Structure formats: structure tokens, C-alpha cells
């Protein structure tokens, strides 16, 4: 169970072709585990984890793990709107999954409008690179190429492995920190009717506690 004390909740969505490793990435991030085999996602699944950004603010990441399969495309697009961040996920050993990234990004932009989400380009399965005797295990997307694309489009880029855990944490922290920074600069704010960013469960409700404590202090001053 998730510790309920957090300051903000950010909703992030993971999109990308099927079998690139979105669910595995999330499983590692939230569970610290890697599953060799997993069923394809139906529609959307949910994960959650609390992290801290640089100033110690606690952020609950609510992660929407969308199905990559084509047949769910019409459904998953209904889930974009309330996201404040989108992780564009591809498989470094699958060229076409990278080539579809611009389409995924366009789709996300279109559905998240008028909000402008934080994007991150996340390459998966780097652990497979190097064991290139096996089929499908040769790197098909170079790091430089991906980085270049990311720079051109103003995205963060990171290569990960849900098997070794490499950069998994970083990928999410990167996005969370960026969202948080944009809150600090006033670019993002909590809006009624939009669930991309919400304030923590405990903030408004916890007020009575703060009041009680503050009251004792306050009453020393007439």
C-alpha cells in the first residue's frame, strides 16, 4: 500500500508500441521486480509510487500504463487528457518502435491539449544490447540518434533496463522534477476539472492537525 502522505500527485502516461516494455518498466519502478513474461496490457493499468523531488517535496506518481496493441488504440486515447507527463517508450532493439515515436508524441500532444505535458523519450531493454547473438537482441536505435531526436523536440532522453534497473528510477524522477519545476515557475498549476496535478491527499484534510498545533503556539501572543 502506498504511504498516503504526499504533497502532489502527478499523473503520467506511458505510451509506445506494444511489447516495448512499458509494463516491465513500471513494474520495476514500483515493485523493484522484473517479470520475464507478462501478459499484454488490456486497455490501461495503474501503478503508483511516491518519490521525492530535489527540495524534498513528496510526489505521488500515478502511472497510467496503456496497452500498446493497435486494437486498444481507440480506448487508450480517451485516457490521455488528464496527464501532466508522458513517457514515450521504445525498444532500443526494435527500430520500428522508435520510428513510431513521433506519431505517439503527436497523438499525445493532440489529446492532452490545451495542456502541454512534459515528455520524456525512454529507450528500453538496453540489457539486451551486447548479447547480440540472439535474435532481436541487436541494438537498432543508437543512443546518439535518439538523443538527437530528443533534443530537436525538446524532450528528455534516457535509456533504461527493467531487468537490471538501469536508469529506471531516473526516467521517472526526471519527468517528476520537470513537472515540479514548472509548477514552481507557475507554468503549471492545480486546476479544477483537470487531474494532471493534484495536491496531496493529506494536505487539505490534515489542516486540522496543523491548526491544533499552531494554536498552542499562537496563543502565547495576545
Amino acid at each position, binding site marked *: *500500500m502506498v504511504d498516503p502522505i504526499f504533497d502532489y500527485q502527478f499523473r503520467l502516461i506511458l505510451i509506445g508500441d506494444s511489447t516495448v516494455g512499458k509494463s516491465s518498466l513500471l513494474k520495476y519502478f514500483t515493485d523493484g521486480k522484473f517479470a520475464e513474461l507478462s501478459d499484454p496490457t488490456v486497455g490501461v493499468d495503474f501503478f503508483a509510487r511516491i518519490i521525492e523531488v530535489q527540495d524534498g517535496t513528496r510526489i505521488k506518481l500515478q502511472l497510467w500504463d496503456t496497452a500498446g496493441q493497435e486494437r486498444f488504440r481507440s480506448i487508450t486515447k480517451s485516457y490521455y*487528457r488528464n496527464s501532466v507527463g508522458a513517457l514515450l517508450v521504445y525498444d532500443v532493439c526494435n527500430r520500428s518502435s522508435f520510428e513510431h515515436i513521433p506519431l505517439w508524441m503527436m497523438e499525445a500532444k493532440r489529446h492532452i491539449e490545451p495542456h502541454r505535458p512534459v515528455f520524456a523519450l525512454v529507450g528500453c531493454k538496453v540489457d539486451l544490447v551486447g548479447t547480440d547473438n540472439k535474435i532481436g537482441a541487436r541494438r537498432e536505435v543508437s543512443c546518439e540518434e535518439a538523443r538527437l531526436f530528443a533534443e530537436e523536440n525538446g524532450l528528455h532522453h534516457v535509456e533504461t533496463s527493467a531487468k537490471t534497473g538501469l536508469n529506471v528510477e531516473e526516467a521517472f524522477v526526471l519527468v517528476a522534477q520537470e513537472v515540479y519545476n514548472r509548477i514552481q515557475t507557475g507554468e503549471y498549476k492545480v486546476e479544477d*476539472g483537470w487531474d494532471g496535478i493534484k495536491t496531496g491527499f493529506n494536505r487539505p484534510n490534515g489542516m486540522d492537525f496543523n491548526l*491544533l498545533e499552531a494554536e498552542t503556539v499562537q*496563543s502565547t501572543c495576545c
Partner: protein
Amino acid sequence: MPSSDSEDFESADEGRNSPSKKERKKRLSSSNYSDNLEFDLETKKDAPLAKSNPKDVAKSVDGWDDFDINEEAESSTKNISGKANVIKSDTKPTSVLNTNAKSEIQPEKSQDTGWDDFDDWGDTETSCNIKEDQLKPQSEKKHSNIKDVTERLAAASTKNEGWGWGWGVDSIFSTATAGISTLTSQVSQGISTVLETSIGAPDPEELARKSKDVHSQQTLSKEPSIEKPQFDISKNTDNETSFQFGSLISEVTKFVETTGTKVLAGGLDTLETIGKKTMEVLQDGDPGLAKKRAMLGLDPADKPVLSQVLREAKAKAEEEDRIREQKREAKEVHYESLFDDFEGLVHLEALEMLSRQVSMRIDERLRSVDPSKRQDIKETLQQVAELCEMPDDDEEEEMEESGDMSKPDALHERLLASTRDIGLKMQYQPLIKQYTETLEWLSSDPDLTEKAIYKRAVSSLAQATAFSVEVYHKTAEMLLVKPRRSTADEADALTQMTVVLTKHIGDIATLFTEKLNSITSEDKEQVNSHITNIFLEADNSSKYIQNAFHLALPIIQIGAV
């Protein structure tokens, strides 16, 4: 909200919030048990759990007779607290307490000249409360002061948990008591002895006058310091006869904790001051307290029993602690946050998005279709909706006792049977697994506490509901990508499934309430309160499930049109 979704996009959330979403939001943002309150306002009234309800507090504060006080005082206190409630129709804990405090002091007051004395106190009070008025003529000060006090009193009684009065009598009491309660009972016995026999204790009136004198001097010489009460505190600790309301807390605490004599001199002083202050407030509009005294039937010759005030303040502080603790516990068994933790809320939300998107598609189809066919479509939609109506009275679900099958297996069987014709591979494992675990937990430890059972009950209900909602969400998604739709079967299957799931929720609630009834507990009231809440949460759970089913309706409907 922003409305610039691109026209072609059926972004499910588009457009205005649906009422249900708003409702859910509201629930989310409100405090403990709000969901119950919202759903079950009527029933909730009887629920003993309204912890934050000021009335309850007042009620329990009333029970002062539990406290070990001397017989003489006992009867009068009962009297006072009972009547005080009558006088102050808005029975706030604060006002009740104050009334009591006042009444204790009042007779002693009357031995004096009365008004003059209050004037003095008014001045003292002014010097610490009203910064701007320091240099104004005394009479004017007094006037504004009284007004000020009245206003504050009003403020305090209207908003219960706010800052209340500037000098926060109730927090003074509670802090003072906190300090005092760290002492042994001997000390407080000592206090009461002294008080009641008046041995060695300086005459409070005398002290008060001294205090006032010192004060007015201080005030004249250095009025800016009033802005910084901390400064005063440090000064005043040396001077036992002089203190300000602002420094009461630290004074009381320090005095009580350090020396016995100081307790008597300073602590009692302080309490005297509080009492007088309260008196003054009470007396407003009732000079000499003639009316109130008459109502209370107090003998004017009664000696003040300040120990009584201490005891009552202690009782109040304990009560507050208890409430605070309950609140914390309540958060741990907060259904809504548990439901959220189990991803129930987000599944419901996603289902809502789908539902809205599909509804829009249906509307779109209705708009674009030939008017002659429109009526047909509407009828079809209506028929599907009727298929999805829940059977009204639980037709005693022919409880076919599933032989030697375990309860979870039986549940699995019923769920699978209900959705046999839906044409999808349904996943009930999480529900079954949770049910198994719940049953194991309940039978594992014979020495479960009522609190543990209650916590687990709420958590189990929230989890079962979250899993159920997830089933609806997943089913809706799969139905939408299902190649061949069979609307009637789907409608029937989901209706049956809803019946099974709501019954399952009821079973869980019953399991836990039976367990609660089976344990021996000295606090029967608490157990009953838990049982009531478990049923309330179960009802809540059923509503979530039916809500999810309702959201799935357009998804079933669209298969037919």
C-alpha cells in the same frame, strides 16, 4: 475549465464535469467518513462515530460527574454544567467550560464591590489585548474592551475550532492542564486543599490588584513590548504577581513544573485571572450575574473551588487528546483513501472516461442517423437499459449451498456462472485471492482486538470494492474491442455479476461484524459503533459497485446500435 479540445476528439473527459464526477471529487476532498455522510446522512445521525461533532464533545464534557470531586462541589457542578448548556444554546465545549469556570468564581466576586473590580480587570486585560488603545483614556479603553470581548466571544462560539478568542481560553486550559497533569496527584490534592481552606494562599483579589498596578506601570513605560509577548514572558516569570494573558501558558506550565509555592502563587493567580476574564465575558449584559446566578441557584456565600476548574480543564484536555487520537485512527481506516490506494478510484475514473466517450459516440450516432431510425435506436437503448436494471428486492438468491466447496471457490463459481455468456475471459483472481486471505486472517488469530478487526474490515471492503470496480473497467475495455457483440447476454451477465458482487460485499461485512460480536470486549459501545460503520462502508461499497455498473451501461448499449 479549459474547453479547447480539438473538435474531433472524443477525449473522454471533454466538456463539463458530469455530476457524478463532481460528486466523487467532493467526496475525495472532504474529511473522514465524508463518503458516509454523503450517502447516508440520515443513518449517520445515529452513528456514534461523529467524532468531530462539537455536540458530542459537549455531551461528553458534560459527564464531569465521573470525576472524583468532593461531594459538595459535585452536585453543584452537575447543576452548573447541565444548566450552562441550557443557557448557551450553542453548546460548544469552550463555552460550557467557561460557564463553569465562571460560576465557580462568581460567588467570591459578589463579596466584593463587583463592578469596580471588573473595571480593574478590564484594564489589565486591555493592556495586553488592545495594542492601539494603550494611551487612550481608561474609560474608553474599558468600553472598547468589553465590546471587543463580546465580539470575540461571539466569534469563538460560532466557529468551534478556529483560533477563537485572541487569548484562547481553551488552549490555555489545555496547556495548563497538560503541564499540571505531569505532576503527581499529590500536587493537585495540595492545590485543592489550599484552595478550599485558604491556607497561605494570597488573596486572589489582592494579587489581581497588584498585578494590575504593575501592569499599568509596565504598559505606560513600554507599550511596544506588548507586541512581543515572549519578551513579557521572560520578564514576568520573575514577577509572580504580574502576568499577561498572552503568557499564561508558559507561566502556568513553568510554575507548575518548577516549585510548589510558585504553583500556588502564580498558577492560582493565573487561574483566577482566567476565571475573572471569563466572568467578565459572561457578565456582559447581566451585571452582577444576577440572572445567571438566579438560574443556577447558587448560594452567593459559596467559596470558589478553583480545583474544580483544574479538574474540569483536565477532563477537557483529556477529552481533546482522545478525540485527536481518534481522528488519527480514523485516517488509518479512511475508506476513501484505502479505496484509492487499491487503485479503485482510478479504475472508476478511467471507466468514467470511457463511459463518457462512448455516450458521446451514441449521441453522435443518434444525431447523424435518419430521423425515422432515430426512434428505433432510442428504443433499443432503452431496452438495453432495462435489461441492466438491478432486480429490485434481493430475490433470496437461491443460496445453493455449494456443497463442500470453499467459500472463495463458491464465489468464483458464482462469478464465472454469472458471466458465462459474456463472451470474454473474465479475471476474478484478485477478488478470490483477497477473499481467501480475509477468511484466513479471521480464523488465524483468536485474540484479535476489536480495533484490528475493524481496520481490517474497512480495508477488506475497500479492497474488494476496488477489485470489483477494476473488473467493470476491464470488462468495459474488452467489450469495446470485442469483435462480435451480444448485447442481451452482456447486459444479463453484468447484471448478474453485480448481484453477486454486492452480495459478496455484504458477506464480507457480515464476516467482520460476526467476528466483532464474538469477541469479548469491555467497550460494547465501541464495538457497536464499529459494527455500524462496517455496515455503512459496506453500503458505500455496494454503491460504488452499482455506480461502476451504471457507467458500463453505454458500453453495453453501443454494441446494439
